[in-house]
């Protein structure tokens, strides 16, 4: 129950003591596993600076939105992290549940990389190669008659690619990374095939079916995104590739390396400049109603959007977050200061 929240507690400056936290009033954050490392870093800094307790659970973007939009009550998640934008369906759920006002905050960019062990040969690829390697169904003739993906080795797609069995460890369908990978890399790759490009204009649903579905015949293996096992698997299986966020690559740059996609290597600069094609924005969402009821909630968001955190040279950059351009930073900072709800 909220009967014990004190109105003064949400203005920390007025209080010289460490604010007393009542159970149920701590800041609860759920959502993306990609944003999780950034989120816990901010949580930790924020806790040090203000003393507020923050709880971050990594549930995947989809799971986060689901929990977040379930109910407007106190005690439900105050914030959800997302490695993609909230979907219309999810936003609708939030509204249906009676959540009045969701503030959207974009915090930066993250690339999605295709990486392999640092000692393995480079597999540079085009987005079309990505599509052909990972789609469930691919065109089997020039008229885009779709059939099960026949490719089993990289060299079957392009001669210059290595003669390795296709074996990719990638995010599961619940993850925002997967959504983004499908929507950016695979879709763009599909459009590089003329008849599919045609189809994308004429029959959107059919195109989605053709471009968005990842193969399930064992060449793509769903795995965790930020885990020890993935790095181990890649280092031990020189022929395998992994699909995950740039920040994770950055953290493990001594063991894995990212492949060129299209023309660009996945580097900080290339992602910032947009030269690396497969990148997406990272977000978090706040329940506006909870601001004022959950002490420290707004302050947390302010900390996240501060220059010291997500600005250039901020401490999130150290762990692989690519900052937003100045204008956007200012825009979202303002959204946080004034708690401006967004609409789809």
């Amino acid at each position, binding site marked *: *129950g909220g009967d014990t929240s004190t109105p003064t507690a949400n203005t920390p400056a007025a209080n010289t003591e460490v604010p007393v936290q009542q159970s149920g009033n701590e800041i609860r954050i759920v959502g993306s596993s990609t944003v999780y490392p950034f989120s816990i870093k901010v949580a930790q800094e924020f806790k040090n600076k203000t003393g507020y307790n923050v709880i971050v659970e990594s*549930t995947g973007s989809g799971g986060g939105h689901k929990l977040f939009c379930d109910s407007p009550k106190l005690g439900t998640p105050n914030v959800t992290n997302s490695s993609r934008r909230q979907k219309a*369906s999810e936003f609708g759920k939030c509204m249906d549940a009676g959540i009045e006002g969701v503030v959207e905050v974009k915090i930066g960019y993250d690339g999605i990389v295709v990486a392999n062990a640092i000692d393995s040969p480079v597999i540079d690829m085009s987005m079309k190669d990505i599509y052909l390697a990972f789609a*469930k169904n691919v065109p089997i003739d020039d008229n885009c008659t779709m059939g099960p993906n026949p490719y089993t080795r990289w060299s079957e797609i392009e001669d210059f690619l290595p003669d390795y069995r296709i074996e990719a460890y990638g995010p599961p369908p*619940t993850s925002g990374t997967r959504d983004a990978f499908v929507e950016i890399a695979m879709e763009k790759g599909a459009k590089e095939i003329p008849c599919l490009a045609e189809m994308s204009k004429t029959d959107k649903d059919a195109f989605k079916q053709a471009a968005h579905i990842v193969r399930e015949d*064992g060449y793509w293996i*769903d795995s965790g995104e930020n885990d020890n096992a993935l790095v181990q698997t890649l280092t*031990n299986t020189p022929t395998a590739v992994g699909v995950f966020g740039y920040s994770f690559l950055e953290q493990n740059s001594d063991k894995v390396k990212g492949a060129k996609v299209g023309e660009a290597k996945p580097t900080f600069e290339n992602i910032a400049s947009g030269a690396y094609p497969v990148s997406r924005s990272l977000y978090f969402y706040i329940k506006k109603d909870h601001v004022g009821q959950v002490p420290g909630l707004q302050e947390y968001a302010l900390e996240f959007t501060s220059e010291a955190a997500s600005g250039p040279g901020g401490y999130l950059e150290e762990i692989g977050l690519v900052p937003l351009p100045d204008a956007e930073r200012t825009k979202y900072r303002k959204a946080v200061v004034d708690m401006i709800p967004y609409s789809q």
Partner: protein
Amino acid sequence: MTNFPVYILALLGLCMIAGFFVNRNTARTRLIAAGGGREGGWHSQASYHGFFTAWGVAIIGLIIFIFGLNVAPDDAGVGFNVAWLAALLAASGAVVIGAQRFIRSDFRARTYVERAILAVLVMLSIIAVLTTFGIVMSLAFESWRFFQKVPLNEFLFGLQWSPQTALRADQAGSSGAFGAVPIFAGTFLIMLVAMLVAGPIGLMIAIYLSEYASPRTRSIVKPAVEILAGIPTVVYGFFALLTVGPTIRNFSESLGFAVPTQSAISAGIVMGIMIVPLISSLSDDVISAVPQSLRDGSLALGATKSETMKKVIFAGALPGIIGAFLLAISRAIGETMIVVMAAGRAANLTANPFEAVTTVTVQIVALLTGDQEFDSAKTLAAFALGLVLFVITLVLNVIALTIVRRYREQYD
């Protein structure tokens, strides 16, 4: 949640204690006035009149507590809490005073108190049934919803596991294959490896300790084996992931073939190590239960110890050992952390232990940590898997427990 209900409960405890002492002392005074307990012809002693009062306070108090919890408005303030507290105190006082009318020589306070104790004990025993009921209901309800989306026979006999239904309206739906055969096969494969490790080792340890070892060896080895039983499975998982997996990989590489770090073999071996103590201690019980007269009978025919063991004791203990193995199998099937950490998530349908496979428990964890959507087959599948797991282990356990129990009785 606020802490006020906890304070109310604590206060209720205090009221019970106070009620006990007040009425015990009242009873004691009346009892002594009557010339002492038995001599005075009192049915129950003073303290039982006290207990009787305390029970009364407890019952009324709990009713008020639960009532208060349920009528408490969302913004329950000081006013409500004071009223709640006052109600509790008043009711307790009334019970204490009311109970004093019962402090008579012929009032069977002890009988009532003991009946109340028994009632509580019965309720505690029923918790076991309720737990099972809760398990079955929570699994069955969600599973039922799952099977409305995915036909049972597709789930049980389908060869492809790829729980990728679209979770949102605007997501491109993938096929969402819910054929559980590959994950049962994976579970079975790992269990098989584990039993191949744990079976012989556990059994031989039991035999050696019960038939050959000196008391000294026994006193060292037994606790050490028990340590293996006490190690949490998350530790085994870490061990499998960080030590055993890489070791097997390096070893296989030196032999010229590649085993992934996460493989059925490494998860199975580590699970086997974990199960060794279970088998050894159960088999030890069973072997020790074989009467000495059978050993004597065999030795008296000129058999050696190992001949006696292999041909007589083992034959006698076989049902019990089978029971022990079944329990171990059920344990292996239900084990979670080791496989979550060391087996991988790839639903390969393979009999090759050097490949990565996935298990029922891994899939449950994978489906339920993180993204959950309680009307999607993907999340509900976890409960269907849980149900199957529960049923399998239930059957194994009941068979095993029956065998072991009947076996024990055989020599009693």
